[in-house]
């Protein structure tokens, strides 16, 4: 064990891995700071670069990028009143008013320090809770895996979406897409429409690149042509003279309850599939305001608001990894893409990941501490300069991303067919998003489809002769998962009824 810990630490502190982590954080901060670029888009288009890397190094890059992007969103939120990522939307509420008061340096200092503490808290929870949770997965049989896939899909489709049926339909579409290719039971080609390239099924990576990146590129182009639809960007008065530095010990001690409470909220929400960073940061912000002695000051430009929001969204990033690494249910869209990255390297989430491939997964987790330290350093010394990236003309960004999506899809197997898959899924993703469908359940459906199908087939085989429902009710974990699935479907309707009663 001692040897393993030593190996993991040595692996993390290899010069290549340190440089990769630093580069990932820096790229993430720039991606996060660019309005219109999301963390999921950044991870999706950079995922193909990890194909040629050692699995641990590839995961270090993606994890660092995610951590950087979560913080990067706050820089543009504070300095130009436009959240770089949806997770930083709550940071705007107090961050930009602070900036207008001439306290931009203080706001940026609080954002980076709170992000750092939230990130460290989330990684610690991931390190402590993921291994025992992964062991629980050993108790799962085929019915539980089938039901877990269904639960993951229903909760991600219903919790974040107001259009519940559309969310569920998007998830069902993803599951249906996953059935294209060779049937796992008899090896008969299914729905391949005569394409040899479809015998292996739809490749997850090009599909994800298309679904996440092309709609954003199209929106970027639209905003470039119609600048009047862009949210007003107001630059701070003291933009050029911002000094950040480290926070004072007195303030750190004063804010400790905020950091802890918000980090707990962030990690908890992150573990819930589909909830995402914006929900985490708004929940933490509201909770901090609720318990504050001066709630009326929130929104006028106070550090507490920035601290709450930023601790929560960075803690969420690690929280989202917990169900992904242990049960194969990603907590958010970035975790879903990272799961695709794991699968490309032949790694399957679950208990085996922590035993047979422990050195990879622990290297990844420990590297997240390093990524957070890099984030603190970069944020402290270079934050105002990151805003200069937001001045890059949108058409340059759009062409760069478009070319990267093509190269990235081609890089997977050196096959043009994957590029065509990316284009088709890009168009599909755009049409879905513009008609009120989220693409996240579709991606999750494509990922979970094979797990669900194998679970269903094996469940039918082992329940010989029994009524399947009766068979499921005899298994406690299955019963819990059925109840959770039904609750996740019922929750949005309950919420709607409650909201309509409040409105009356």
């Amino acid at each position, binding site marked *: 064990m001692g040897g393993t810990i030593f190996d993991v630490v040595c692996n993390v502190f290899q010069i290549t891995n340190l440089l990769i982590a630093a580069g990932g954080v820096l790229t993430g901060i720039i991606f996060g700071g660019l309005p219109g670029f999301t963390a999921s888009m950044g991870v999706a288009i950079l995922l193909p670069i990890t194909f040629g890397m050692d699995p641990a190094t590839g995961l270090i890059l993606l994890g660092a990028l995610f951590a950087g992007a979560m913080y990067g969103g706050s820089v543009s939120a504070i300095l130009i009143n436009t959240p770089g990522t949806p997770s930083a939307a709550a940071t705007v509420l107090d961050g930009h008013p602070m900036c207008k008061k001439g306290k931009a340096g203080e706001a940026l200092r609080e954002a980076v320090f709170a992000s750092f503490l939230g990130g460290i808290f989330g990684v610690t929870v991931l390190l402590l809770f993921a291994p025992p949770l992964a062991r629980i997965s050993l108790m799962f049989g085929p019915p539980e895996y089938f039901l877990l896939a269904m639960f993951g899909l229903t909760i991600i489709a219903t919790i974040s979406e107001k259009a519940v*049926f559309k969310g569920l339909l998007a998830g069902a579409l993803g599951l249906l897409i996953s*059935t294209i290719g060779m049937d796992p039971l008899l090896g008969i080609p299914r*729905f391949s429409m005569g394409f040899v390239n479809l015998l292996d099924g739809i490749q997850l990576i090009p599909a994800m690149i298309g679904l996440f990146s092309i709609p954003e590129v199209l929106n970027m182009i639209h905003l470039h042509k119609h600048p009047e639809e862009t949210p007003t960007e107001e630059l701070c008065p003291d933009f050029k003279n911002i000094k950040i530095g480290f926070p004072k010990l007195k303030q750190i001690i004063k804010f400790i309850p905020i950091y802890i409470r918000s980090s707990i909220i962030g990690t908890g929400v992150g573990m819930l599939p589909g909830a995402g960073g914006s929900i985490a940061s708004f929940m933490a912000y509201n909770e901090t305001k609720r318990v504050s002695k001066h709630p009326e000051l929130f929104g006028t430009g106070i550090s507490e608001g920035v601290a709450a929001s930023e601790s929560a969204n960075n803690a969420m990033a690690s929280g989202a990894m917990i169900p992904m690494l242990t049960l194969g249910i990603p907590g958010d869209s970035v975790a879903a893409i990272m799961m695709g990255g794991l699968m490309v390297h032949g790694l399957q989430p679950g208990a085996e990941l922590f035993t047979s491939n422990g050195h990879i997964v622990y290297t990844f987790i420990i590297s997240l501490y390093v990524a957070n330290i890099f984030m603190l350093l970069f944020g402290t010394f270079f934050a105002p300069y990151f805003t200069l990236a937001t001045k890059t003309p949108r058409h340059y960004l759009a062409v760069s991303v478009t*070319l990267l999506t093509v190269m990235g899809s081609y890089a997977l197997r*050196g096959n*043009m067919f994957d*590029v065509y898959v990316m284009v088709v899924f890009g168009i599909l993703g755009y049409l879905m998003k513009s*008609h009120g469908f989220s693409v996240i359940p579709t991606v999750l459906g494509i990922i979970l489809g094979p797990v669900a*199908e194998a679970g269903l*087939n094996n469940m039918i085989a082992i329940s010989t002769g029994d009524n399947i429902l009766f068979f499921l009710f005899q298994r406690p974990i299955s019963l819990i998962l059925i109840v959770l699935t039904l609750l996740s479907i019922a929750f949005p309707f309950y919420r709607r009824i409650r909201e309509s009663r409040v409105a009356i």
Partner: protein
Amino acid sequence: MVRAGQERCSAPYHEEVVVLVIDRVIALIALAVCSLVYWATLSYPPEVVAFPKFLLYVFGGLSVLIFIFPGQQKSYNFKKIFSKEKFLTIFLLIGYTIVFPIVGYFVTTFIFAIIYLWIFKRQGLGQYLIYSAIFSALMYLVFQKGLYVWFPEGLLL
């Protein structure tokens, strides 16, 4: 002359009707896709399509629910959804992916980047040339030299 009920045809009411109609059209398209795939499942042995059939029942059921309870989106801005520049971007992307393996990576990428930039902002052709050359070379170095991904050489380069 003001006809009875004309006041109901105000903009918000009109938008509401459009949303209901569009959502129902989406539900009908989903049902049509569902029927087509179900028809395709009939040519396979039952055990091969047990899971897809289960999914098709769910998919069909959800489509019916959207048809019955439409209006889950506030409004549709068709000018924005189907704008000229978005069509142009998709058209360029498709064109690029078709020409790329035939002509070769360098030439296609270089020309595509210039056309793309020029179409969306007609200024600084010199900058566009420099950007396109640097970006194409950078991608070549990262993917072909760094990651050993061999791009198609095609007729030219």
